[in-house]
């Protein structure tokens, strides 16, 4: 498993794809100015890398940092969702992750839970099948529910995930039969 902010050359990405099975890519913001100011990097290589991983067929999840007073707004959420819908597909898991103040960025509070929950709601309304909050320890928004009938499939608490009886080994929901993109 490889988790990274993914500011990498295309050659490096292709090399990593050959040796890793699971990719978690952290897209800090869908905003070039944000990348220049806060990461000293640029956004296009990150998006290109995400697309390369997606096209490889390897398991891919995207996380998006939601920063208080900076990216905790609907416009930012929609840009992130647009990328998934337009460039990847709606089955790619997306995690809206809470920021916490640290190091040189301590002037704002930890992202309110309500903000990332709202982002998840928006993503689901727009058709994303697997949207979650991140850096949240206990909340419905970290569980997996059947995309068709809403049955609870995976219950999470912190770093503990418990597969529920509703999730069958073939990745379908025992309640309605819908396939939920699981490979158990």
């Amino acid at each position, binding site marked *: 498993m490889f988790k990274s902010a993914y500011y990498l050359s295309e050659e490096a990405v292709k090399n990593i794809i050959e040796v890793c099975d699971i990719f978690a890519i952290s897209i800090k913001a869908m905003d070039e100015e944000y990348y220049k100011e806060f990461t000293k990097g640029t956004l296009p290589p990150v998006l290109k890398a995400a697309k390369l991983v997606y096209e490889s067929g390897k398991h891919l999840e995207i996380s998006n940092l939601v920063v208080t007073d900076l990216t905790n707004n609907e416009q930012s959420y929609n840009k992130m969702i647009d990328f998934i819908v337009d460039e990847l597909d709606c089955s790619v898991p997306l995690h809206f992750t809470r920021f*916490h103040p*640290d190091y040189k960025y301590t002037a704002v509070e930890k992202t309110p839970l309500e903000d990332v929950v709202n982002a998840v709601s928006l993503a689901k309304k727009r058709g994303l099948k697997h949207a979650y909050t991140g850096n949240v*320890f*206990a909340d419905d928004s970290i569980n997996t529910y059947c995309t068709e009938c809403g049955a609870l499939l995976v219950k999470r608490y*912190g*770093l*503990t995930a418990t597969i529920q009886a509703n999730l069958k080994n073939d990745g379908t929901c025992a309640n309605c039969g819908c396939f939920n993109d699981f490979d158990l």
Partner: protein
Amino acid sequence: MKKYKFSWNDDIYLIHVQFDTNSLDALENKDIVLNRVFFDENSESETKTITNNGFRFIVSRSCPEEKYVEIIYDENVYMKLFIIDDRAYYPTFTYYEG
């Protein structure tokens, strides 16, 4: 053996624990025992073996019913405990040493 009890609360669900020793080879007991104790006083135990100096791992509260975690380790081992707010970070501020 040394024993340290860390109680979970509404703000803290994650900790790192690190174990240092002057000589891993000289240790009689390299095992660290984690007892998860629940509000009904039932408990679950797991064991980890120190494999290197500076051996560190993450401990997460497993459920809301888990009251505290008790860490039992060799007298010749020095433990550092760190509180984490974000699992992606590598904490360096020590909450407890001993």
